[in-house]
Each structure stands twice: as structure tokens, then as C-alpha cells.
């Protein structure tokens, strides 16, 4: 089979449905990645327009351009859109698009999940934008502090849009994160051991783990605040034992890692592009990996530096000040690695390189002001002033937007297959860079002169007028620059002439495929021996097109790729992907019904939508697997491998593992919140603690012995060629006991409106109840799968997945019940 026939055959297998239908049924990462990035850019434009409104308002004193109510919505939505609907989704979209190509794979781990996450983003983001257009947008600042955002301070629906809309969008982030982790660990080209991964893959892995650990505290906080607003459960009301500082802890536990989640992908982009621009390889690859890992984890220890003015004891302030200064070290290691790479190379001044130079200048300034505000007495002077606004824009625009513009111009030939002809990009570069610095240097200055943030106007005579006017002029210059970028990219994408493959002569695998990318990425999968496979073998692209790699025979008519050993990159199994389907968008719509029901207080819609989601999940999962044991399959080049679905750790097991990791962080945050309220909040103890009695603890203990034992027994029986039913029944009985125990707790406690303790008891019991119910459903599902012939000693992946869910639920019910019963036992 020649290259052209192979291309046509693979395209038939992998292509999305033609026409409009393809937009809604595609599960192809290239298509979804493009859509993701396009939507993110649309949100950037909306956020940018809001920025222009802000600068128009602040250009002159006593401005009547916007009243305070409108201004509050504008600046809140500017921050919310930029942080949640632009920055993170652009990283997700870029990674969804590019990661499989960089790794030498044909798709991400869970294609339908990619699509589901995308549609949740679109629907959740649309919800928020609708609120803006309708004039009922959130208006309490992008970090929504109670009591301002509680029912008393914000009685309208505005805040609910934020809490519910953002939680909806976060499904997309969690989905993408699970996919990215599993894809980086397993879905790589054969031979691509950990030390041969492209550097961006390390950054993507680290960021994805950060999303899984950083987003759950915010999801929890959003749920608690919405429960308080909708049902008067007083988590943040001091009079009833709550504490508004709990929101700040939960928010910033998310919020600080969030800014590194935004910066690190950009650092990955720079680590990829800069060596190519300098015609060399990255200096200190190992050091950069170590710096990325340490920066990622260190970022979780800084959160209280956003709360230096809340009256925390001296020692606590010093802990976080020390950690905040320390974080400059791994950041600097990366910067010095980049400078060293430039030093030893021969930098060429192409447009991506110009954006990287702009990044250096801007991000370093932002980093220096960051070290300044890490020093507590200085922070006390500038907290809540425009100085902080300037700092955050320097690090976020300098540290994310500029590198992503470099990425845009670097990879544009790969995406479009065209060579850049129109040169508006250079003009745009100067307008944006100069305009940005004029804007935000001025904002630093006016902050030091005492101008506070989030004020809709100011009086004359404070020395702020000319500075703000200059800043606003700079802002409009910047906006014109971004407009030119959009025009430049559109022209070059649609009108420019075709270019040659690999115009940058880069060494990474995404340049080994035809441009624009075909639906299948690689006609056959490469074996990799170094970090720069294209440099090792300049004819690699041609050889892969001729089918000389692995999985080059499309004869089975399936969407196939390989999974490899995590550390060594040794090929382990063949994965068969699902084909085009509307299931993800339908499920996202039904999920939207659930969120809409909560937002509009149409509460009957919530359980109905939940049942709809459950039905669709069953439909989704039922389509996987086989009814018989398949032997090893040929992967080409004399290599035979098993199917991944028939191995001990199928992809779904890995996905469940990391999803449960995120879930565990959520539960840990809940226990943290409980401990925080118990020890720190005023107005404790509550009127009464729950009396455990005997029945509740007995149900918990009996159930949480039966459930995991039953699941283990089911697995052992299947391995021995017997039926799993006795074990599954025992496990189900255990879960039902757990459900009963949680219901008993809720029935025996005071109402959740009574005190923060009772509200927390309800949430912990509700969490246990939800998980026990889900696992009970999973047990019934696996039983049905066993009856239909999907389980065998070789095909026991589903049971292994069930076991980790059972074990997780057992642990949380035990810990949760213990936390609930403990005060009653102690008193």
C-alpha cells in the first residue's frame, strides 16, 4: 500500500462526519482542539472589550461613562472571563490539539471525554456571557468574597451565575486534566521514555496534576456558598458558626496554583520554541523538569499571601512570606536555562522570538513586583491597590499571553499548512508590547500613589488623573494591536500560499506529519530514540507516510494507537478508539439542565437531569469492551500486542485513578473546612453535637467491611473463571448499609440551617451518600455486564475499576462518619 492509499484509508477511518454534523459528533482531538482554541479566543475578545470599558471609565476623574452597578459587573466579568474562560481553556485547547502530535500518538486517551469537556465549556461559558448581556452578571469581584457575595450582600441571581456557571466550566478542566495525565503517562510513541519526552509534555503533565489538585477546593467553596445562598446553610455566616475566611482559604488554595496553572504551559511553550529559534537544544532539560515539578508543588504552599491583611499571626505570615520568596528560585532556574540556551545558540529574530523577548522583559518585571509583595510590610501598603492589578497583569499577560502569541505564530504553519505572507504581525507586536507597558507601568505608579482597585471612579486632585489617562491611551493602543493579530492570523490562514513541512527545522514529532494535519496524525507510529527525532532522521516524515512505523496497516478499519510503559516507553498494548458520536454533546446538554435547574431554582429539573446523565453514562460505558477474549494483535514490524481493554490496567482504570485523586482532594478540602470552622470560627460549639448512637456506627462498620471484601471476592472469582455475583451482591449490601448510615445521620442531626456544624454534617453525609449511591449503581452495571458476557479472567478491567471506586468510597465513608461522630463521642 503506497502512501497516498494509506492516507485515504486512514482518513476514511479517522475523519469526522462531513458538514455541520461533524462539528457536533466529532471526537477527534485535532478538530476539538481547534474549536476549543477558537472559542477561547472569542472569550478573550469579550474580556478585552470589557477591559476597554474599564479603561474608558478610569481615563478621567468623576467619569459618568458607567455607574457603579454596571462597573462592578464589567470588572468582575473581565477577570472571570480572562481567568476561567480564556486562559485555562486556551491551554486545554492547545494541549488537546498538540499533545498527541508531540507524543507521537493518534489521539488523547479518552476522545469522547474531550468532546464532553469542550461542550461543557461552551455551555457554561455561554451561561456566563448571557448574564453579562442580560445585565445580571456577577458583580462581587472575580474572587467573590462573602459576605459581599452572600445573600445579604448580593441578593440577586448575579452571584449564582458565577458559582454555578464556573462549576459547570470546571467539568471541562477536570476532564481535560484527567486526559492529559493519562495521555502523557501512557499514550506515547514507542521508545519515548520519560527522559525523551518533549519538554512541553512534562509541563502539561505537571499542570494537569495541578488542575486535579487545585480546582476541587474552588468547586467545594462554590458548592458551599451556593448551598448557603439557596438553602441558608451558614458556612460563611459568623453568627451561626461560619466564617467568611473559610471562603478565602478555599478560594486561594485554588487561586494561587491557578496562576501557575496559567504560567507553566506558557513556560512549556517557551522551552519548546526558544531552542528552535536559537538553532540548538534546550540547555538543562533535567533542571527545567525539576524546576517545573518543584514550582508546581511549591505553588500550593503560597495561598495565604493573598490574605496577609486578614489578621493572621506573625508566624503564619512569615511561613507564607518565606514560601512566596522561595518560589522565585525554580522560576529563575527556568529563566537561566532559557538564557543559557540563547547564549549557546544562534538566535534568529523571527516573530515567535520577538514575542519570547517580550515575555522575558515583561514576566521578569512582574516576577520582581511579586517578590516585593511577598514581603509582608510592603504588601500591607499595596494590598487592594492598583499596584496589585499591575503586578497580576504583568505576570499573566507577560507570562501567558505573550508566550501564547509566540506559540500561535510558531505553530500556525503546522495548523494551516500555509507559509506566513502578510506581515501585520510585526506591527501588532510593537503596538501590543509598547501599549501594554505604557498601560501597566502607569497602573503600578497610580497604585503606589494610593489608588485602590475596584473603584468605579475617583476625585480630582489626587495626582491620578494624567497617569490614568496615559494608561487608558496605552490600553487602546494594545487593543488595536490585538485586533491586528486577529486580522493577520485570519489572512495568513485563509489566503496565504502553501508552505513546506517543518519551516522551522524543528526536531519534535508534530513536524513529522503532513500540514495541515490529517485526522489520523501519523500514518504509522514512529520509534523514538532521542528528544529530537526529526533531527536524528530528516527522512522520518516520509518513512512514516510510507507505513514503515508501527500500526501502519489500516486493514482492521479501526481507530488504533499504542499505549506504552510509563517509564521506559516500551509498547504495551493497542488501544481501539470509539468513532464519531453525538453522545458527548447530548450529555453536556443534559448536564447543563442540571446546572440550569439549580440556577433558576427549578429543583425538579435537577434529579431529572441527574437521571438523564446516569442513563447516558450507562449508554457510554456499555459501548466499550468485548464479549470474547481476543488474542494478541499485530502492531506491525513483527510486534504483537494485546488490546488495552484486555489488560490488567486498561485506560479507564488509569482515568478513574486520577479522577478519584481529584475527588480525594475535594473530600480533603471538606475535612479541612470542618476543622477550620471547629477550631477558628467564632460561635462554636454548636447548640448540640450529633449523638452517634449504636445503629449508625454499626451500619458504617458492617457496610464498610462488606463492600470492599465483596468487590475483592468478585475479582478473585472472575480470575479463577467463576461468576462474580456473590461478591458483587455482598458489596452492594455493604454500600446500601453505607447509604442507610448516611441517611440516618442526616435524619438525626439538627436542620442544616441551625449552625455551621450541622450544615457541615449534612454536606459530609451527603458526599458519602452520593458516592455510595454511585458505586451501588456501578455494582449493578458490572453485574449486568457480567451477565452479558463482557467479563472474563482476561477481561477483568471493569472489576478492577469498580474495586478502586469501592475502596475510595469505603475510605471516605469511614473518615466522614468518624469526623461527624467524633465531637459527640468526645463530649
Amino acid at each position, binding site marked *: 500500500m503506497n502512501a497516498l492509499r494509506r492516507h485515504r484509508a486512514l482518513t476514511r477511518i479517522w475523519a469526522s462526519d462531513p458538514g455541520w454534523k461533524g462539528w457536533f459528533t466529532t471526537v477527534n482531538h485535532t478538530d476539538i482542539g481547534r474549536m476549543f482554541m477558537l472559542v477561547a479566543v472569542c472569550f478573550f475578545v469579550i474580556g478585552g472589550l470589557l477591559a476597554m470599558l474599564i479603561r474608558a471609565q478610569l481615563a478621567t476623574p468623576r467619569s459618568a461613562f458607567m455607574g457603579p452597578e454596571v462597573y462592578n459587573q464589567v470588572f468582575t466579568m473581565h477577570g472571570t472571563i480572562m481567568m476561567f474562560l480564556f486562559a485555562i481553556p486556551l491551554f486545554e485547547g492547545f494541549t488537546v490539539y498538540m499533545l498527541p502530535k508531540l507524543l507521537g500518538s493518534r489521539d488523547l486517551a479518552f476522545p469522547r471525554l474531550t468532546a464532553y469537556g469542550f461542550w461543557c465549556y461552551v455551555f457554561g461559558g455561554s451561561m456566563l456571557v448571557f448574564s453579562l448581556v442580560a445585565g445580571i452578571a456577577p458583580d462581587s469581584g472575580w474572587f467573590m468574597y462573602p459576605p459581599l457575595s452572600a445573600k445579604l450582600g448580593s441578593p440577586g441571581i448575579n452571584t449564582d451565575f458565577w458559582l454555578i456557571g464556573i462549576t459547570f466550566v470546571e467539568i471541562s478542566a477536570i476532564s481535560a486534566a484527567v486526559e492529559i495525565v493519562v495521555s502523557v503517562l501512557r499514550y506515547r510513541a514507542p521508545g519515548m521514555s520519560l527522559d525523551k519526552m518533549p519538554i512541553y509534555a512534562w509541563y502539561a503533565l505537571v499542570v494537569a496534576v495541578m488542575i486535579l489538585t487545585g480546582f476541587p477546593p474552588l468547586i467545594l467553596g462554590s458548592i458551599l456558598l451556593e448551598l448557603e445562598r439557596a438553602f441558608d446553610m451558614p458556612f460563611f455566616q459568623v453568627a451561626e458558626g461560619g466564617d467568611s475566611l473559610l471562603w478565602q482559604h478555599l478560594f486561594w488554595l485554588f487561586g494561587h496554583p491557578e496562576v501557575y496553572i496559567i504560567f507553566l504551559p506558557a513556560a512549556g511553550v517557551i522551552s519548546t520554541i526558544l531552542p528552535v529559534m536559537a538553532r540548538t537544544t534546550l540547555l538543562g532539560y533535567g533542571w527545567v523538569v*525539576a524546576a517545573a515539578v518543584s514550582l508546581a508543588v511549591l505553588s*500550593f504552599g503560597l495561598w495565604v499571601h493573598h490574605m496577609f491583611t486578614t489578621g493572621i499571626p506573625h508566624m503564619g505570615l512569615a511561613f507564607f512570606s518565606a514560601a512566596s520568596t522561595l518560589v522565585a528560585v525554580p522560576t529563575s532556574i527556568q529563566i537561566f536555562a532559557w538564557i543559557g540556551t540563547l547564549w549557546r545558540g544562534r538566535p534568529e529574530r523571527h516573530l515567535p522570538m520577538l514575542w519570547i523577548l517580550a515575555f522575558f522583559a515583561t514576566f521578569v518585571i512582574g516576577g520582581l513586583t511579586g517578590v516585593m509583595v511577598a514581603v509582608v510590610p510592603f504588601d500591607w501598603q499595596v494590598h487592594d491597590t492598583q499596584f496589585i492589578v499591575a503586578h497580576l497583569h504583568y505576570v499573566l499577560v507577560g507570562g501567558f499571553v505573550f508566550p501564547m502569541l509566540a506559540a500561535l505564530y510558531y505553530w500556525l504553519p503546522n495548523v494551516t499548512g500555509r507559509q506566513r505572507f502578510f506581515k501585520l504581525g510585526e506591527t501588532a507586536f510593537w503596538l501590543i508590547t509598547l501599549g501594554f507597558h505604557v498601560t501597566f507601568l502607569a497602573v503600578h505608579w497610580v497604585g503606589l500613589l494610593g489608588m485602590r482597585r475596584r473603584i468605579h471612579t475617583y476625585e480630582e486632585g489626587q495626582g491620578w488623573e494624567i497617569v490614568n489617562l496615559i494608561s487608558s491611551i496605552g490600553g487602546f493602543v494594545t487593543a488595536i494591536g490585538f485586533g491586528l493579530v486577529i486580522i493577520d492570523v485570519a489572512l495568513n490562514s485563509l489566503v496565504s500560499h502553501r508552505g513546506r513541512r517543518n519551516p522551522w527545522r524543528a526536531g519534535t514529532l508534530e513536524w513529522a506529519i503532513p500540514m495541515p494535519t490529517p485526522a489520523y496524525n501519523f500514518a504509522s507510529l514512529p520509534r523514538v530514540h532521542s528528544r529530537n527525532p526529526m533531527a536524528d532522521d530528516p527522512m522520518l516524515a516520509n518513512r512514516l507516510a510510507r507505513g514503515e512505523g508501527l500500526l501502519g496497516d489500516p486493514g482492521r478499519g479501526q481507530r488504533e494507537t499504542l499505549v506504552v510503559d510509563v517509564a521506559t516507553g516500551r509498547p504495551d498494548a493497542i488501544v481501539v478508539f470509539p468513532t464519531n458520536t453525538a453522545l458527548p454533546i447530548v450529555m453536556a446538554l443534559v448536564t447543563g439542565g442540571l446546572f440550569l435547574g439549580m440556577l433558576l431554582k427549578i429543583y425538579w429539573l435537577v434529579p431529572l437531569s441527574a437521571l438523564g446523565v446516569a442513563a447516558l453514562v450507562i449508554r457510554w460505558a456499555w459501548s466499550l469492551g468485548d464479549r470474547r477474549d481476543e488474542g494478541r494483535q499485530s502492531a506491525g514490524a513483527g510486534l504483537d500486542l494485546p488490546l488495552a481493554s484486555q489488560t490488567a490496567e486498561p485506560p479507564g482504570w488509569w482515568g478513574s485513578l486520577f479522577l478519584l485523586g481529584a475527588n480525594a482532594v475535594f473530600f480533603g478540602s471538606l475535612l479541612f473546612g470542618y476543622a477550620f470552622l471547629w477550631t477558628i470560627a467564632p460561635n462554636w460549639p454548636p447548640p448540640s453535637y450529633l449523638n452517634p448512637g449504636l445503629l449508625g456506627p454499626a451500619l458504617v462498620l458492617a457496610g464498610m467491611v462488606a463492600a470492599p471484601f465483596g468487590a475483592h471476592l468478585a475479582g478473585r472469582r472472575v480470575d479463577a473463571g467463576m461468576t462474580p455475583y456473590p461478591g458483587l451482591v455482598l458489596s452492594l449490601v455493604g454500600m446500601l448499609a453505607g447509604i442507610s448510615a448516611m441517611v440516618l445521620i442526616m435524619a438525626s442531626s439538627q436542620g442544616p440551617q441551625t449552625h455551621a456544624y450541622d450544615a457541615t454534617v449534612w454536606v459530609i453525609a451527603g458526599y458519602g451518600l452520593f458516592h455510595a449511591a454511585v458505586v451501588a449503581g456501578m455494582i449493578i452495571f458490572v453485574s449486568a455486564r457480567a451477565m452479558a458476557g463482557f467479563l472474563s479472567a482476561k477481561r477483568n478491567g471493569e472489576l478492577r475499576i469498580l474495586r478502586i471506586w469501592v475502596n475510595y468510597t469505603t475510605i471516605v465513608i469511614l473518615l466522614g462518619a468518624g469526623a461527624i461522630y467524633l465531637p459527640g463521642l468526645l463530649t
Partner: protein
Amino acid sequence: MIDILRLALPFTLWLAAFSTVYGLHGFLCATPGGNPIMAKSVLMIAWALLLALQVAILISFRSDRFVFSSVWTKKISVTLALAAIIANIWTFLPIVVTTGCRALAL
């Protein structure tokens, strides 16, 4: 996967230690009738134990007992273990140089 976990272990332990010490500090200061000098002593003992644990991890990574899949992953793991020890010392230094439970006046 073991290699990935070893790469993540040193700083994850630092984070757990940091959160534990911060939480312990909050708990000790919130306990009615608490003695600031005793609180500081408890924190210093906790610090010493956690630092010893980090050093133990570094020693175990350097030993031949635990096999890494490659020289590269061993090198990076050892580097991270060393960096985590430095992070531990720097970020817990406030225990000895600051006051126990007093908040500073703004």
C-alpha cells in the same frame, strides 16, 4: 509509574509538612489556655521530625536499594529531594525567628 511517584514525593512531602505545621500552629494558638513557648517547642519538634523524614528520603534515593528505571530519573529525583530539604529549612525558619501566636497590628 514508581519513577513518577518518586519524582513527586520530596516536594509533596514538603507540602504535607508545610500544611501540617501551619495547621498545627493554628490549632495550638486557638487552644484556650495554650502556652506560646510550649506551642513553639511543639512546632520545633514537628519541624525536626519532618526534616529528618526529608533527609531519609534523600538517603534512600541515593542508595542502591531502590532501583530507578534510568540514571536520568534517579538524578532528577535526588535533585528534587535535595531541593525539598532546602525548601523545608527556609520555609520553617519562621518557627525560630518569629513570635508564637501574636498577630501584628496593621
